[in-house]
């Protein structure tokens, strides 16, 4: 599933991705700071088509970032284009939601692992554990990401147990019975 304009191998070349997280609050408080420190990241890359066009809200998130980190807010297309020009950085990728992460993977991003850290509550979604509201569509998208070779797990803060996607899918199945 290659998008027009991406190089023919469709492979993401950003080999220095140290962490990849879905968090609908993006850069917020001490949660993300803890992860940034743990992973020794140097650059925060928010990948979100809408946010890349919202200059003001983008500025708010850049201001919210702890000192010492570079922050880039890019559309999926631009993030893919930039992949080879980012050297000597330890990249921490943030997606706002499952849909965007799924699109990025479909457009050629290869992620070793994807941490689901925070999800927005919406009507029709149920929390199978802790506070991770998901619906069938979310599960399908996450399954798709896992099938592309990414380890998908749920975890909010360091120290908390990682919960595998398979556990969440199992719980969803049980709940729908």
């Amino acid at each position: 599933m290659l998008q027009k304009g991406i190089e023919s191998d469709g492979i993401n070349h950003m080999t220095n991705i140290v962490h990849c997280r879905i968090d609908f609050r993006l850069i917020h408080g001490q949660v993300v700071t803890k992860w940034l420190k743990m992973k020794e990241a140097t650059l925060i890359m928010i990948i979100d088509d809408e946010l890349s066009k919202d200059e003001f809200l983008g500025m708010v998130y850049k201001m919210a970032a702890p000192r010492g980190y570079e922050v880039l807010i890019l559309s999926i297309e631009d993030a893919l284009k930039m992949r080879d020009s980012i050297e000597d950085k330890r990249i921490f990728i943030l997606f706002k939601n499952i849909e965007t992460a799924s699109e990025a993977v479909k457009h050629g991003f290869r992620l070793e692992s994807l941490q689901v850290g925070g999800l927005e509550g919406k009507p029709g979604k149920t929390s199978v554990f802790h506070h991770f509201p998901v619906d069938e569509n979310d599960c399908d998208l996450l399954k798709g990401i896992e099938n592309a070779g990414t380890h998908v797990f749920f975890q909010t803060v360091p120290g908390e147990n990682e919960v595998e996607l398979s556990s969440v899918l199992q719980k969803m199945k049980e709940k729908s019975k």
Partner: protein
Amino acid sequence: MSQKLNIIVMNHGEFGTWLIKSAEMIVGEIKDVYAFSLTEGKSIENLIKEVTETFDTLNGETVLLTDMYGGTPNNAALVIQQKYQCRLICGMNLPILLELILIRDRDDVSLDVLIKNCVAAGKKSIESCISPISSI
């Protein structure tokens, strides 16, 4: 201040609601103060919407109080501050809220001075108390 000062409190969870109740234990009923909570699962966009809906009904000056810089309530407050004329103090605590309430009606104090004094009052209020027994 010669004009009315509204206080909008924005925090994680119900911190603001309860902080206001605590302040009321000390100074009695407080008017023109509004609390907004960022609850689990609520997006920044929804919080901004809730606050701006109230903001649109207010007259006079407004100050936003948030719990901490970098948190989503403060990120929301920064967005609101761009669209609406208002002040913003992050890292709110009880002394700051009390200072605002007690001084806002004084005609001889401008908004600039009030905000400055509140920040100073908040900072000054934080200290580690030494135990007379163990000198810790």
